[in-house]
C-alpha cells in the first residue's frame, strides 16, 4: 500500500471527531476521552526508574489478524447476520456483556473475568494506518512510531528503557525469533522454554572456566550476537534455577505453554517488566474460519483458558500483572466464498489483570452500515496506543515525558481501563 498517503492526519481527525460524538452521550463509550498528555492538571508523581512496584506488562500478540467481530459480536445487528451468514451468531448464542456486545461463547473464561471486574474490552480499535498487509501493519504496530519511521526500536524495548530496567530478564519474548517490539538498545531475552536455554558445558573442564572463556570470546565482538552473549550466559545460569513445574493445568497449546513458562519466571521472582507472548494459533482465516467447532472456536478457547490458567498459576502475583491482547488488524465485515474472512482493519483488544478496571466495553462504536465502514471493514475509531499508554501510565508508572519517548508524537487518552498502581 502507498505509505506516502498513510492518512495519519485524516485518521487523527476522524478519531477526534468520533471522540466528540462517540464519547459524549454514547452508552457504549466509557472514559471521557481525557487526553493523558493534555495540560489537564493531572499530576503523576510516581517515580518510574527502578520501581519494583510496576506491573508485568504482558502483550499477547494475536499475529495474523484477529477477527474482533467474532470475538466480541455487536448485538442486534441484522446487517451483520446478512453479511456473515455462517460467521456470526444469533445474539442468544453469545455471552452478552452489556446488551450491546456479546463474547464468543468459547471465551467463557473471559466472561468470568469480565464479571469479576478484571477484564475490559476495547472495540473498533487498531492501528492508525491500516494497510491490510500483515507484515507492514505488524511491523508498524510493534514500532509504534508512525510519524517517525526511522526509529529503530520497538515500543516494548523503549518501555524497558523508560522504566529503568537494568535486569537482562526484564524483557522477555517467548518466541523463536526476536520480535520487532523488543528490538532496540535495551536487552531482552528471547526463548520459548527454559529447557532450551540450559548451557551444557564441556565434559573435561569446569563449568565456570568454560563460561568465562565463552564470555571472553564474545567480549570484543561488536555484532548484536557478541554484545548480548554475556547477558545470555548470566540469564541462562539464573533460569536454570527456575522451577518450570506447576500444578495448574494449562491448555496443551503453544500459548498455554508460553504462558506457563512466563508464569514460572514470575513465580521465581525474576523481575520481568514486560513480556511479548505470541499467540501461536492460526488467526489468518481466509477460509473455513470455523466459528463453532473449527479454527476460530478453538482459538478462543485457547486464548481464554490459557489466560485463566495463567491467573491461577501466578496466584497472588496476578495483582501485578496486566495482559493486553493486540493484533495487526481485524477481518473484513463480509465473509468470503470460502467461509473465511479476508484482511480488514478495526478489531478488538482485551485488557485483563489484577489492576484492570474491568467489566466494561470501551468503544466509539462506528456502526456497521456501509457509510460507517472503511473499504468494507470495521473502522478504527480508537488507536491501540491509547490502551498501551494507559497501561504503561498507571501500571508502569510512566510519566507523560516517558510516554512521549515510548510513543512519539502521540497524544494518549485515558480510557479508564486500569487502576492506578500507586
Amino acid at each position, binding site marked *: *500500500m*502507498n*505509505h*506516502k*498517503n498513510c492518512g495519519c492526519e485524516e485518521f487523527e481527525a476522524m478519531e477526534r471527531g468520533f471522540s466528540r460524538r462517540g464519547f459524549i452521550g454514547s452508552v457504549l463509550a466509557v472514559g471521557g476521552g481525557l487526553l493523558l498528555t493534555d495540560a489537564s492538571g493531572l499530576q503523576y508523581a510516581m517515580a518510574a526508574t527502578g520501581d519494583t512496584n510496576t506491573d508485568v506488562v504482558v502483550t499477547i500478540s494475536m499475529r*495474523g489478524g484477529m477477527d474482533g467481530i467474532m470475538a466480541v459480536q455487536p448485538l442486534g445487528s441484522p446487517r451483520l447476520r446478512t453479511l456473515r451468514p455462517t460467521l456470526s451468531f444469533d445474539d442468544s448464542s453469545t455471552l452478552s456483556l452489556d446488551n450491546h456486545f456479546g463474547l464468543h461463547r468459547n471465551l467463557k473464561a473471559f466472561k468470568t473475568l469480565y464479571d469479576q471486574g478484571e477484564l475490559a474490552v476495547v472495540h473498533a480499535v487498531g492501528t492508525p494506518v491500516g*494497510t*491490510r*498487509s*500483515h*507484515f*507492514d501493519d505488524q511491523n508498524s504496530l510493534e514500532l509504534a512510531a508512525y510519524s517517525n519511521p526511522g526509529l529503530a526500536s520497538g515500543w516494548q524495548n523503549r518501555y524497558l528503557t523508560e522504566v529503568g530496567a537494568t535486569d537482562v530478564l526484564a524483557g522477555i519474548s517467548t*518466541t*523463536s*525469533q*526476536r520480535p520487532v517490539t523488543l*528490538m532496540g538498545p535495551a536487552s531482552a*531475552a*528471547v*526463548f*520459548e522454554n527454559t529447557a*532450551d*536455554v*540450559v*548451557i*551444557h*558445558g*564441556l*565434559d*573435561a*573442564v*569446569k563449568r565456570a*572456566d*568454560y563460561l568465562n*572463556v*565463552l564470555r*571472553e*570470546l*564474545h567480549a*570484543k*565482538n561488536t*555484532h*548484536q*550476537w*557478541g554484545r*548480548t*552473549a554475556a547477558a*545470555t550466559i548470566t*540469564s*541462562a545460569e539464573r533460569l536454570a534455577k527456575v522451577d518450570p513445574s506447576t500444578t495448574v493445568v494449562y491448555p496443551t497449546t503453544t500459548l498455554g505453554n508460553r504462558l506457563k513458562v512466563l508464569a514460572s519466571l514470575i513465580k521465581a521472582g525474576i523481575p520481568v517488566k514486560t513480556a511479548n507472548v505470541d499467540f501461536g494459533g492460526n488467526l*489468518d482465516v*481466509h*477460509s473455513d474460519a470455523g466459528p463453532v467447532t473449527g479454527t476460530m472456536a478453538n482459538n478462543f478457547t485457547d486464548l481464554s483458558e490459557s489466560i485463566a490458567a495463567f491467573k491461577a498459576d501466578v496466584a497472588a502475583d496476578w495483582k501485578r500483572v496486566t495482559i493486553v491482547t493486540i493484533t495487526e488488524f481485524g477481518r473484513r465485515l463480509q465473509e*468470503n*466464498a*470460502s467461509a*473465511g474472512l*479476508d*484482511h480488514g482493519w478495526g478489531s478488538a483488544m482485551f485488557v485483563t489483570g489484577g489492576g484492570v478496571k474491568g467489566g466494561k466495553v470501551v468503544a466509539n462504536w462506528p456502526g456497521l452500515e456501509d457509510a460507517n465502514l472503511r*473499504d468494507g471493514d470495521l473502522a478504527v475509531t480508537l488507536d491501540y496506543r491509547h490502551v498501551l499508554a494507559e497501561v504503561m501510565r498507571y501500571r508502569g508508572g510512566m510519566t507523560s515525558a516517558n510516554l512521549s519517548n515510548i510513543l512519539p508524537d502521540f497524544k494518549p487518552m485515558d480510557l479508564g481501563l486500569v487502576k492506578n498502581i500507586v
Partner: protein
Amino acid sequence: MATAKNLALESAALAKLANGFDPTERASFRKLGFKAWLEDQLNPNKKENDFVNNAMTNFLASNLPLAKLATTFPYSAKRGLVGDEAIQTTLLRRIYSSRQTFETLVEFFNDLIPVPVTVDTISRIQYDRDVIRAYALGRYPDMLLASSRAPGMLYFLNGATNTRSHPNENYGREVLELFTVSTKYPYVQDDVVTAARVLSGISWSRGSMSLVVNPNNHYQGPVSLLGWSDPNPGQTSDDILATSESMIRYLALLPATAQAFSHRMARRYVSDNPSEALIKAMAKTYLTTKGHIPSVLKTMAFSTEFAASGGAKLKRPSEYLASTVRALGLRLSAPIQTGDPTATYYFAGSPLGPIQKQLSVQGHEPFRWPFPNGYPDTEQAWTTMTGQVQRWNLSASLAQGLRGTGFSSVDYSAMLPATAKTPEAITTALATRIFGAPLAPDDHKAIVALVSKADVSKPGTDSVSIWASTATSLFFARPEWNMR
C-alpha cells in the same frame, strides 16, 4: 599465492554462496578460481555426489509423480511422514549436496514464495521439486507462474477457493506485496481485488490431482492493474490461463519487482542492509535478462560489495548447523534406511530426525514458518537466548562426539599431525586445518588457556582427543563463526 584479499573473497563466497566450506569445496574453489567455481555451481547439469543420490533413493514420496503420490500416500494417513520427508531431504541436501549454491537458492526461494509444510505435505513435496528446484536456475517469472498454479500455493493462499462472486484476496494481496512489486509500489486495494479476480476459478482437484479451471467461477470482463490490462473473456479454461499468465508475467517483470527481488536476494546473501547501488545493479540485470536468476546472482556475487561482505551477516540456525558439520567433515551417524510406507513411522532410527529436532528447537525447521513472508533474515531477529545457547551446546556436542546429534564423531587423529601433543600445538594445528589459518591471537590465547585446564587425569584418557575436542568446541562457539 593467496593474498589476504583472495582469502577474504574465498571465505565470503564459501560462507554465503554455499552452506559453508568443507575441505573438498575449498580445494575446488582454489583450483577453479571464484568465477569458474560459481559458474560450475550454477551449471544446471552439475552432478550431484553419490552419497546424496544414494541417500535420496531411500525416500519414497520425493521420487513419485504427484498423481502417484496421492494414491501411495492417501490424505488420511502418513501426511506427517511426507512432511518429515520434505524437511529431511532438504536438510540432507543443504548439508551434503555438491550443488551448494543451488541449495542456497532453493532455500532463498522457499522463503520468497513459501508454502509451509503444514498446508499440505504432499503438495509441499511437489512444490519443492516442480516449482522451486525446477526453476531456481531459470527465470523468476516462470517460477512465479508455476507457483501460482501449484497445489501447495493454491491451498496456502486460498486460490483454490477464490471465485468470481467472492474473490478471496489472500493470494492477490501477497502476489503484489511479497512476490512481486512490494509495498514500496503504490498499489491500492482495488489492485488486490483485480489480481484476485484474474486468478478466480483456477483451483485444484484432490480427486484427479490436477489443476481445475472453471469458467463459471471466473470473473469475466476487462481487468487492469498497475499498467496492465486484458479483455479477460474467461469463456474457456485456456482464456483464463492465458489472462492469468499474462498478468503474472507482467507483474514479475515490472521494475519494482526487479528492485524488490534484488533487495531480498542481496539481503539474503550480502548483508542486512545492502546498498542501493548494488540493488540497482542487480535490478538492471534482472530486467535485461527477464528475471534470469543465475544472472542476477552473478551480478551480486561479482560486486565489490559482496567481496567485502564476509562476516556481515548472522548465520541462521540451519546455516550454522550445516557449516559446522561441513567444516568438521562429519557424516551421518547411521545410514538412512529405505522408507516403508506401511510402517507406522518409516523414519525410525534415521539420523536426520535429531537434526530436524535441533532446528525445531531453534525455530528454523525447513518449511515451518507459517506466514507467506518466509523466515526472518536479519541479525536482530535471530539473536536470541535460545539461539546462542543451542549453538554453544551443539558445538560442544559435535566436537565431543556426543551421541544423539545425528552425526558421526570427529576423527581428531586424522586431523592432527603426530607431532601435535600439547594444548598449544593442538589448538594451532586444528585451527589451521579447519579454517585454513590460525585463529586471532586473543582467541587463540583464551582457548589454549582453557584447553590447558582440561582434566586428562582419568585412567584410559586420551589427552590429545580431550584437548582437541575442548578446543574445537570453542572454535565453533566464537561469534565470528556465527557470522558469514
